[in-house]
């Protein structure tokens, strides 16, 4: 039977206390903090991070499809899943598709994956959901939105949570939306959103789903569903007869915030981290309708524990010092540019030639002398053998920080820039920037890992490459 065979999550390193935002604008101080993607992250890079977590111990040759779900893809026209698939080094025959347009995009993708696996067109389907939505400054959405990503692998072998049933309704409503040209998410009056949207659609869909599968509220160990805030969650959970404390999955509102498309599946991952074999989980998303799934956890769950997941990423964090920093990272306010030469637009042709080396961090290993080298070479740096190499991936290799500097002169949205020389376990060296770090903690000899980032965007081209960071967790 089709089900989830692996899971992973990604929550950015940085968190912004909601108190910092309230201090800036006055008004009600909301509790908790929100996860804030670093200035070099976006939905594509976070999706890659979550997928890398999900693919721990998975043979990527068995993946037939990759779905990327987000309302905040870097591109309106160009497929993000193609970028993610390349960064993950998936097979060229992988069927890639982007799901968008609604916070239901992630659960839409689950449905498509189920159907594809059931029909035999794919064995294993990787789904990445990521969002980093923006609310206007001073508004409730800015306070509640957080950034994050999640990845689920669906298949029919070694299933950790079987999908026993699914149900969906589609609904036309303008409650939360964003136009093609908008930067910030729009919303209609709160009471309308709740009464005719969320708090009416979720109960309708869940009630119908339970009826369809002849299940009752009490038969679920865990109920996982989307909500904008804990109050909405509580209202709907009560109405449906779920025990909030015992059954309903915490919304991560105080620790991560509303991660949009990623939220419902992220809550599911949090539930799976605690689940035992035999648990039945009810799972629902919201956005222009509602997708409902009934899941049953299998004993295989015990083989999928070594993930960073939600728990690991939650624990490894650093607080942003100020709201201004967040404003600068998101380029919400113009700031005086550094007096440095402007960056050149990268050549799309050169980026295309470098798609393996740059996106998948592929180097080469000399077949004559065995020396791993990045970037790919034509002539071996050690033995000068010509064109006698095999592909060699550095993306998931840990390394040791050989030397570094904290550079205040380099133009950066978040100075100083930490420049690093990293020596990989197993050989090879890279010079790259370091991200997600407190400058005080950086020492020669510390252990680092590679992370996929957007190094900059110039002339309409987001330039993705890799940086190092202290081993996250």
């Amino acid at each position, binding site marked *: 039977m089709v089900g989830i065979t692996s899971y992973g999550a990604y929550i950015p390193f940085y968190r912004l206390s909601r108190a910092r935002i309230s201090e800036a604008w006055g008004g009600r101080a909301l509790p908790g903090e929100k996860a804030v993607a670093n200035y070099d992250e976006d939905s594509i890079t976070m999706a890659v991070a979550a997928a890398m977590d999900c693919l721990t111990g998975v043979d990527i040759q068995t993946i037939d499809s990759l779905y990327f779900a987000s309302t905040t893809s870097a591109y309106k026209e160009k497929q993000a899943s193609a970028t993610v698939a390349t960064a993950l080094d998936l097979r060229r025959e992988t069927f890639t598709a982007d799901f968008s347009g609604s916070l239901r995009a992630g659960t839409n993708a689950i449905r498509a994956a189920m159907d594809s696996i059931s029909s035999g067109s794919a064995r294993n389907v990787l789904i990445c959901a990521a969002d980093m939505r923006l609310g206007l400054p001073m508004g409730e959405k800015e306070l509640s939105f957080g950034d994050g990503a999640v990845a689920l692998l669906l298949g029919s072998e070694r299933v950790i949570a079987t999908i026993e049933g699914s149900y969906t309704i589609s609904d036309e409503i303008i409650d939360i939306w964003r136009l093609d040209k908008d930067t910030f998410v729009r919303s209609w009056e709160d009471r309308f959103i709740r009464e005719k949207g969320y708090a009416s659609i979720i109960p309708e869909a869940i009630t119908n789903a339970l009826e369809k599968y002849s299940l009752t509220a009490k038969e679920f160990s865990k109920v996982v569903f989307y909500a904008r805030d804990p109050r909405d969650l509580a209202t709907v959970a009560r109405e449906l007869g779920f025990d909030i404390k015992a059954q309903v999955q915490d919304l991560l509102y105080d620790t991560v915030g509303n991660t949009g498309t990623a939220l419902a599946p992220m809550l599911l991952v949090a539930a799976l981290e605690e689940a035992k074999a035999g648990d039945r989980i009810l799972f629902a998303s919201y956005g222009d309708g509602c997708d409902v799934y009934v899941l049953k956890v299998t004993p295989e769950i015990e083989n999928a524990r070594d993930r960073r997941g939600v728990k690991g990423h939650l624990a490894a964090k650093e607080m942003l010092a100020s709201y201004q920093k967040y404003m600068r990272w998101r380029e919400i306010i113009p700031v005086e540019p550094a007096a440095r030469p402007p960056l050149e637009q990268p050549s799309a042709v050169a980026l295309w030639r470098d798609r393996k080396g740059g996106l998948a961090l592929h180097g080469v290993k000399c077949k004559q002398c065995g020396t791993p080298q990045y970037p790919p070479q034509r002539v071996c740096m050690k033995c000068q053998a010509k064109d006698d190499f095999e592909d060699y991936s550095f993306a998931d290799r840990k390394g040791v920080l050989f030397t570094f*500097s904290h550079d205040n002169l380099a133009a950066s949205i978040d100075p100083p820039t930490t*420049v690093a020389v990293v020596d990989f376990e197993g050989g090879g060296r890279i010079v*790259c920037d370091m991200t997600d770090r407190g400058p005080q903690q950086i020492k020669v000899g510390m252990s680092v890992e590679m992370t996929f980032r957007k190094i900059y965007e110039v002339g309409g081209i987001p330039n993705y490459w890799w940086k190092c960071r202290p081993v996250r967790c």
Partner: protein
Amino acid sequence: MGSIKDKVAIIGMGCTKFGENWDKSASDMIVEAAYEAYEDAGIEPNDIEAAWLGTWKTYECGEPLAVALKMPYKAVTRVENLCASGSDALRNACYAVAAGAYDVVLAVGVEKLKDSGWSGLPDFAYMVPHYPGTGRMESLTAPGHFAMLATRYFDKYGLSPEEGKKILAKIAVKNHHNGVLNPKAHFQREITLDTALKSPIVAWPLGLYDCCGVSDGAAVAIVTRADMAKNFRHDPVYVKALQIATSPQEGLLDPEYDYAHVEETYRAGVAAYKEAGISNPRGEISIAEVHDCFSITELVIYEDLQFSPRGQAKEDVEAGFFELDGGLPVNTDGGLKCFGHPIGASGLRMMYEVYKQLQGKAGARQVKNPTLGLTHNLGGVPGLATVSVLIVGL
């Protein structure tokens, strides 16, 4: 392999004041330096038979040199080799004379950096992208990369950042002291150890006074055949060695590179000493003008050029060995530290100092009876560098 030793000589040199020359264009500076050199050599502009223009970004061709000097229908070639551009222009000029193609030639180094509107150097990201044209690379600034040399040097030799920075500060204080004695220097101000140590961080662990300035300048040399040199003056300076070592990028790719030395400097030095017939550089070289783009660079150069044993340059710094009255005065004119670093001009500016010192015309900075002088340029960054070592003598 052959040798350039004693085949050609420098018979005239000129050098502008270095600094933020807001009121001078690159061609203004070329004219100033060239006419000083003509006068010094006692020749007329039309005696020049061919010219090499060393510049990094100011000009992309040789034409502007002919235009500035109204040099009629001679061969003019632009030479670019990063921070060694000026030295390489001189090297090419010397080779042309040694080949017997010309008798009197001109080597020019110039750079106009301060028309840019920003601090620091122009973009040199083209140099080390992991894949050409993609811009996929680390954030590249000169201080950021040379700071990594300091981090590792300190770590390798067990120096705390505080101890390490103190040694670097001594180098800055020395160079500033020498610069005060030089009217052509950009900065002519003494600094104290305390000032250097308390300066704001540019790229940890390097502070403001560990970094050279950014300035404009030009310098010029006139080269002739060694057997003709005394026809022009009684004290020509003879070329003993012209060496360049260019990195195949190993240091950025290969964990064997220790980031506590610059291999290209060592290699260029070894080759130059061989060409000049020098077996004991520490004892034989009278003065050296080296590429102190950063204080750590100068510290490491002492070891790479074999002036000090590995890991022991700090003892020589503490003993004042490289000061004006020391055993081997280094950067007697104030170095890049006080002249700033107009890329294409620096190599010939260094040669100007060595030339004047060897002729006994260095004024308050004059070193006692020098016979052999060395200039060193380091282009690029540790791990990926182009280094020139030139040696001249009486």
